[in-house]
Every structure is written in C-alpha cells, then in structure tokens.
C-alpha cells in the first residue's frame, strides 16, 4: 500500500512498477523460475502453488464448485449422423459447467486464488475480465468473505456496450463486487495495476498457476465420469480456446487421470477484426473464445497480467479448429430446440466444433464439448443478434465459410454446412518459437531446445528447423 505517499500515476510510471506491483499482489516471485535463457521452469511454477490436484478437488467441494454432470446429446448425435457417411457420427456429450454457482467453468479457476488470497491475509481480490471469470471471482469472494473488484472492458467511445458484458457486470454486482468499467483499449492492465497498488488486494489473475491448476479438476472429472458411465475414456475432448487456461488445465487433468483423449482447441473465427479498435468493438458478437485472443495467447502466452502465464495451450493441443459466429449461434439454437437446454452462446463454441468433428469419427467413438455456460438477458442469442443487426451486421443463411467478421453473420443453411476448419498448428508453433527465441539473449542451449519442444508439443527436429530459419 502506498497511502500517504505521493505516487506517480502516469502510464509510464505505473507500468514501470509492474514487476513490484505483481509480486506484492500475488506473493509469487516469478524470477526464481527463469533460467536466464529461453527456458523457464514451467512445472516448477505449477507445483510451487502448494495446491495439488487433490487439494483443488477438496477446495472445490468445500466451495460448491465442480462435480458437474455430463449429458449425452442424443438428438444432436442423431442429427450429425444424418449428415455423415455411413458408420460415422460419434456420440456427442457435453459437460454442464453452467451448473457451477456462478454459471461457468471459470469458477474452478477462482476457488484457489480467492482461498490463497485469504490465507495470505489479503482483504480482497481484483480480476481483469469482461467474461464469466468476473462472476466466478465475485461468487467465490462472496462465499469466502473477501472484497472483490472486477475491471471490465465494456463500452465503445459512444457509450454503447456489448450486451453480454453488461450482463456480466450486473451479475458481478449482484454477487457483491465493485465493477469498474472501461472503454476499449489494452490500457485496462494499467488501470488494474493502479487498483492493485491502491487497494493492496490480491491479483486473481486468470493466468496464475492457482487458476489454471484449478481447471485440472475438469479434465480429471471428465475421465472418471466417462469410465463410470461408458466404461471408457472419451476419444476427443474439445475445449474453447481464448487465453488458453481452459485447454491447459483440462488437458493436464486428463493426463493426471491417465486419459489419452485427443485434445482439440476451438475458437470463433474473428479474423480481420482488431481487438483494440474502438470502432470494431461492437461489430463482433463474441467477446471471448475467439481467435482474437486464442491465437495471440497460444503463440505468445506471456503477454498477460503475470510475467509467466500458467496457460500454455500449445503444450497440450493436438488440433486447433475454428468455427464461425453463425455456426455457434446455430448450435446454440439447436441445443435449445433439439435438446431442451438454453446455454451460451459463447460457451457453445466447443459444441459447434464437436458437432462438426463428430461426423468425421466412427459411430462408436465419443466426443465431448467440455463446457456449457449460463444464459440470460443480454447474454443470449436473441439480444446478441439484435445488437449485431443494430450495428449494421447482416444476418444471412448460407455457407458459413463465406462469413466475414464485422460484416455479416452466416447461419448454416442446413446442418451439414456447419464445418469446423483446421487452423495451421505448425505455423503457430513456429510463431511461438520465434517470439521466445528472439526475445532471449545469448546462445540457445540444449535445455532451451528441450523446453521449446515441450512448449509446442513438437520435436527437436521441428524446433531446430525454426531456430535455423532465424539464424540461431
């Protein structure tokens, strides 16, 4: 706390103090994991939280999080099979994460952060999020008796807010949090640093090891639930991908449960829209789980609000597919019309991908979309599509491949046109290697090569080839 002192609050001064502020606000000294070269000790950072998978399970039981049901979507499976080759069409399941207290899987990320903050004597927690994580932290802070501030990017310069984000603000306030709303811009992190400094609260970062470790329970539960219900593990687990914590945590949990399911990332394709643009802010219908976060965070995990992110999805990703906004809205309507469940829409990104991927798989295989999320006024396909139309976005039926983010939303004219598209994973792997290698000083060591192989789930030959192309 800096009260009583005169503190320089200019942008340069505050961001210049970032390292100290974050250390004060988390009690983690990130420098101890650095090698001085490219590599850092990821597993060391993940293990040093003091919370094992068993601890996370115990804490989540205590605070009413997790143990969410899995539902088999019989009608969506039947529909997928009508648009698949004979013998194709895997059984489609979903894990109903909407049944967590604050309505999403994000609460798994909040439990240990809030618990740890309280244990260390912090009076409150701060999180930077426009999404479900805000409600998750607010809910846990309410349950565990801490104060909570949520910082949101919410409005454009005409004070027009994304209906989905305004609903999240309402929910956070309903759960007792202060919600500080900002207009468009990455300087949100500057505001968060100022708030951390002013209040002395804990930084409940989405990217901390406490948070990502908490998602391991999701993968662990999935593996055990499928053994119990189907006598076997799922073949494919689809995770919506934005900051990468969902996929990272789930995959680590699956591994710890001995499940070798293929892990597929899915993001909504928002190619061409700038995430920092005031004018384009309200021309998108998805504020999370989209490529505008998914690709930059996968290829450069360490540009978040912590020096080293615990969310490193390329370590665990077997495949990365994108779906269009129109396809996610369509599957959201299908979930309501054919399965009797109103969820999402953003939380159905993985389900849209699963519906497409199921058609490539055999009938006796199992694919699972590992989350749902709550729905409500503002955060629902009708207000979001009405908002899109009001912002000049055309709503069309046709081939979603032709959708242009910011211009139109194309719903599949028939279910067979819902088609997830593969993103170039090797291109992303090379991009990660390039960024990390060019940032480091000094020669590349064998330990660096081994680290980059793990970072990208690739091979020494692949890493060496990329490094050679950089002259390293």
């Amino acid at each position, binding site marked *: 706390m800096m009260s009583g002192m005169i503190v320089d609050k200019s942008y340069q001064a505050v961001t210049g103090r970032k390292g100290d502020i974050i250390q004060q606000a988390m009690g983690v000294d990130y420098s101890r994991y650095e090698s001085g070269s490219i590599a850092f000790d990821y597993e060391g950072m993940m293990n040093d939280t003091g919370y094992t998978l068993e601890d996370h399970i115990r804490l989540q039981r205590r605070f009413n999080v997790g143990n969410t049901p899995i539902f088999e979507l019989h009608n969506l499976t039947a*529909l997928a099979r009508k648009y698949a080759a004979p013998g194709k069409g895997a059984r489609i399941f979903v894990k109903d994460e909407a049944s967590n207290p604050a309505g999403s899987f994000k609460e798994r990320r909040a439990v240990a952060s809030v618990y740890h903050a309280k244990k260390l004597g912090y009076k409150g927690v701060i999180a930077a999020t426009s999404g479900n994580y805000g409600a998750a932290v607010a809910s846990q802070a309410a349950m565990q008796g801490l104060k909570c501030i949520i910082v949101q990017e919410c409005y454009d310069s005409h004070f027009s807010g994304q209906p989905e984000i*305004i609903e999240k603000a309402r929910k956070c306030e309903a759960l007792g949090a202060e919600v500080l709303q900002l207009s468009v811009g990455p300087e949100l992190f500057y505001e968060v640093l100022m708030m951390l400094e002013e209040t002395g609260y804990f930084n409940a970062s989405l990217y901390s090891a406490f948070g990502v470790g908490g998602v391991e329970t999701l993968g662990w539960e999935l593996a055990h639930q499928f053994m119990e219900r189907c006598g076997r593990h799922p073949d494919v687990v689809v995770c919506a991908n934005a900051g990468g914590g969902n996929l990272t945590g789930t995959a680590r949990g699956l591994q710890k449960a001995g499940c070798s399911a293929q892990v597929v990332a899915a993001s909504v394709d928002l190619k061409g829209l700038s995430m920092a643009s005031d004018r384009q802010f309200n021309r998108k219908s998805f504020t999370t789980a989209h490529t505008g976060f998914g690709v930059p965070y996968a290829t450069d995990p360490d540009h978040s609000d912590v020096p080293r992110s615990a969310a490193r999805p390329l370590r665990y990703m077997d495949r990365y597919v994108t779906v269009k906004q129109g396809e996610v809205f369509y599957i959201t309507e299908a979930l*309501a019309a054919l399965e009797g469940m109103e969820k999402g829409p953003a939380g159905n990104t993985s389900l849209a991908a699963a519906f497409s991927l199921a058609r490539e798989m055999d009938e006796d295989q199992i694919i699972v979309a590992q989350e749902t999320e709550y729905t409500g006024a503002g955060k629902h396909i009708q207000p979001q599509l*009405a908002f899109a139309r009001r912002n000049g976005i055309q709503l069309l039926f046709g081939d979603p491949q032709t959708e242009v983010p910011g211009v139109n939303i194309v719903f599949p004219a028939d279910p067979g046109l819902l088609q997830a598209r593969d993103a170039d994973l090797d291109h992303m792997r090379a991009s990660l290697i390039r960024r990390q290698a060019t940032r480091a000083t000094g020669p590349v060591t064998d330990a660096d090569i081994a680290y980059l192989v793990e970072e990208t789930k690739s091979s020494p030959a692949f890493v060496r080839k990329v490094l050679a192309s950089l002259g390293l």
Partner: protein
Amino acid sequence: MAKKNDWVRIHRHVLEPEERTGKLPDDTKRVPLEMWVKGRLENECASIGDEVTVVTCVGRREHGQLIEVDPCYDLNYGAFVPEILTMEESLRRALFGGDEA
C-alpha cells in the same frame, strides 16, 4: 438532484487521447480511455454533470462526473430476430422430417 449516500454512477477520463499508448489503432488513439463506476455519493448534494466523489461497495473512494442516480440495468432479450425462428423450424425439420416439424 442526488443527495449524500444515494447510489449513483460516475464517469471520468482515465487517459486523454495524447496520454494513450502508441500501439493502438488510430480510431482508439483518437478517443480517451473512459471509466464508469457506481458508489454512494459523498457530496451533500449534487446534480447530473457535477464533479463528485463516491465510495464504492468495497469502500474505495472514486471521483468523476455524476451521470446517473439510482442506476438501473436496462439489458433485455432485444428485438425479435426472425432468423432464430427459421433456424428452429429448419432444425426440427432436419431431424424429425417435414410432417413432425
């Protein structure tokens, strides 16, 4: 007119356009970084547009221009979107066939 302890919403500029970071698209760089927050009014009384201070629900003091007294949520389910109905009808038809749609 708001009086002390009323629940209000305030607004202020956190960064003016010239104070914003260099890495922004031009349209964002041209506008200020703005902030909105709610709290209990500290001033004895104030009108919309006045500079005021509030205490937020976590006990933090903030200042800015008063923009709303008794702020409410006006989010809803939006205007009717006929395409949703079309999707619903075609999905039922695709799965169950024309007669049972």
